[in-house]
């Protein structure tokens, strides 16, 4: 089994877990966004976005910087007004509610703990402003400190905390007033790698324990893939695709998604035949320009003659010994790079395009060909995906 495959399998479980969570509770929509647009004087930050986020879901907005994900988050939080469209929280329109009247809290990128207050006072602040009773506030504060494992730090000042601890206090502070939705604006980006990886699991666990809807904003695809129930990939103010980590990675809807998430190979091609058309999953035969034919899948209805790209993930390609292969795809092995768990190979195809291959360093799948050898290329079943340009 390939490392990448394992991670995909784990992610593939997420939607099922989600279904388990919501079978006994009626499926409910926490946030519903309809035809939302946001314009600044001469920039369109969000362009007619519609999406709905389920109750108790870990939902991620993923995209490069400037794609509008933070603007969308700030609109949900109440810090930005909308130019057009509607935002609903559990069925009620919140577009006109100011930030302090929305039962939505945010974990900010730089934590922004109040420097003049102790850890406990920071956590209590939201509940005090909400007007909760003193006994409830104290009890809830202790509960939150325990949740983020900082019970011994109640009296510390934020300046006496490490980055990871400050991050956890910011999380506890936002969770303490029991918001209906928690927004997280790249909360892990200021931490170092090891801490970031540990916090991912912790965040996911806390989300499941508290049962609060999380909306997480990040530009880090790995973060998005490991934590989310569903991901919305955004670019240029538009949503490119919404789906589980597995769907986003294995069945990208367009070139942007295929390119942005993980590594991929794009090969120019033309559809020659539609084998099977079932609405959302169509099987096609594609002519790879100058190479030969391949079967590919597509989520859109496509007519023969359409041009586009076939996208294949590097780990779904295998290198075959030329001696016993009847594959139509051939190329010259140019480079082998040993990367620990796997080996990365670059193949120059007969049409001049270059192909990236990732092969695990297990005894069974080890690449035996040497640079300069002519090799055949095999692809896993259903690995090729046709995307319209």
């Amino acid at each position: 089994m390939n490392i990448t495959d394992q991670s995909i399998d784990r992610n593939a479980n997420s939607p099922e877990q989600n279904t388990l969570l919501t079978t006994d509770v009626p499926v409910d929509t926490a946030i519903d966004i309809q035809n939302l647009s946001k314009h600044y004087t001469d920039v369109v930050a969000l362009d007619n976005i519609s999406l709905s986020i389920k109750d108790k879901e870990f939902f991620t907005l993923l995209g490069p910087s400037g794609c509008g994900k933070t603007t969308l988050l700030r609109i949900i939080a109440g810090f930005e007004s909308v130019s057009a469209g509607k935002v609903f929280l559990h069925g009620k329109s919140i577009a006109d509610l100011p930030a302090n009247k929305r039962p939505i809290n945010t974990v900010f990128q730089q934590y922004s703990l109040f420097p003049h207050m102790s850890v406990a006072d920071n956590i209590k602040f939201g509940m005090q402003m909400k007007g909760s009773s003193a006994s409830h506030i104290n009890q809830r504060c202790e509960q939150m400190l325990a949740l983020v494992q900082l019970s011994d730090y109640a009296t510390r000042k934020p300046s006496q905390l490490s980055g990871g601890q400050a991050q956890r206090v910011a999380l506890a502070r936002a969770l303490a007033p029991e918001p209906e939705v928690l927004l997280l604006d790249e909360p892990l980006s200021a931490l170092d790698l090891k801490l970031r990886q540990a916090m991912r699991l912790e965040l996911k666990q806390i989300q499941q324990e508290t049962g609060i809807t999380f909306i997480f904003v990040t530009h880090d695809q790995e973060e998005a893939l490991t934590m989310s129930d569903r991901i919305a990939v955004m670019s240029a103010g538009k949503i490119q695709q919404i789906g589980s980590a597995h769907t986003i990675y294995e069945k990208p809807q367009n070139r942007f998604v295929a390119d942005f998430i993980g590594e991929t190979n794009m090969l120019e091609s033309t559809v020659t035949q539609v084998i099977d058309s079932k609405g959302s999953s169509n099987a096609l035969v594609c002519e790879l320009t100058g190479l030969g034919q391949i079967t590919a899948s597509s989520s859109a209805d496509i007519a023969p003659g359409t041009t586009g790209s076939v996208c294949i993930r590097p780990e779904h390609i295998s290198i075959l010994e030329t001696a016993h292969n009847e594959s139509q795809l051939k190329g010259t092995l140019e480079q082998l790079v040993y990367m620990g768990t796997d080996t990365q190979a670059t193949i120059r195809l007969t049409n001049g395009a270059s192909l990236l291959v990732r092969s695990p360093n297990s005894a069974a799948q080890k690449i035996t060909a040497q640079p300069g050898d002519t090799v055949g290329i095999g692809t896993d079943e259903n690995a090729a995906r046709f995307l319209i340009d």
Partner: protein
Amino acid sequence: MNRTHKGLANNMSEANLSIKRYPGFFAVTLFCLFLLYAPLLVVMVYSFNDSVSITRWGGISLRWYYDVFNGAETAKFKTAAWNSISIAVLAAISSTTIATLAALGMIRSARWRGKSVSFALINLPLMVPEIVTAVATLIFFSAIGFRTGYASILIAHIVFCIPFAYLPIAARMQGIESIYEQVAMDLYATRAKAFTKILIPLLMPGIISGFLLAFIISLDDFIITNFVKGAGIETLPTAIFGAVKQGIKPNIMAISTLMLLVSVLLVCISYIVGRSGSITPKKE
């Protein structure tokens, strides 16, 4: 000291260019310090003089300090001191409040028409010659028929203290990221609560610093006060000036030394408070 070759070269050229290496640097420094502080030193030393003369040394004593509090002119100076202090406190409170609100408008707001002009207008009084302000204020009061006295002094003081209070408050507010108020409002605080619970505490060193600066400026103002005070009321500086016109008695030196002490003390507090309370959280 930087030990790398490049660093060493940089240090050397910096050291060569340093003003410290100019001939006579030390002598000029001493001369300047002497010019600045010698008069003050003379006044301070002679305030402890045990002689009726202000130039002849007659040994150390505290008789003139005793005279300040129990002498023939005590009543006059006491009233003047009370006027000065009460005006300074009221002027400092008012101007600090106004300056805080001005800073809020200048720094915690989106761009608005006339923002940069307003910035210049707030700070311009610092550059206008005081005598011009004094004459203008007097003409203004008489033009509108405002009776000169305690109130006219207070109003004039509030006005000219505003830019002094504004500077440290604005500097402090600039250093406080607006994200803290956003966080507070995200956590159900109203705009007013975010201001009183978050911004004001974070701003406090700047406010105290601005308050003390305004207090000092008001306490020792002479020119404007002298113009707008009218007859029958004195502040400490105008009372001292009045006394000096009839010949300098050593008790003036004792009063001056006491005022100097108060000023130095407040400026030091202002400086220390202004620097304290780092507001940037530690980052890893």
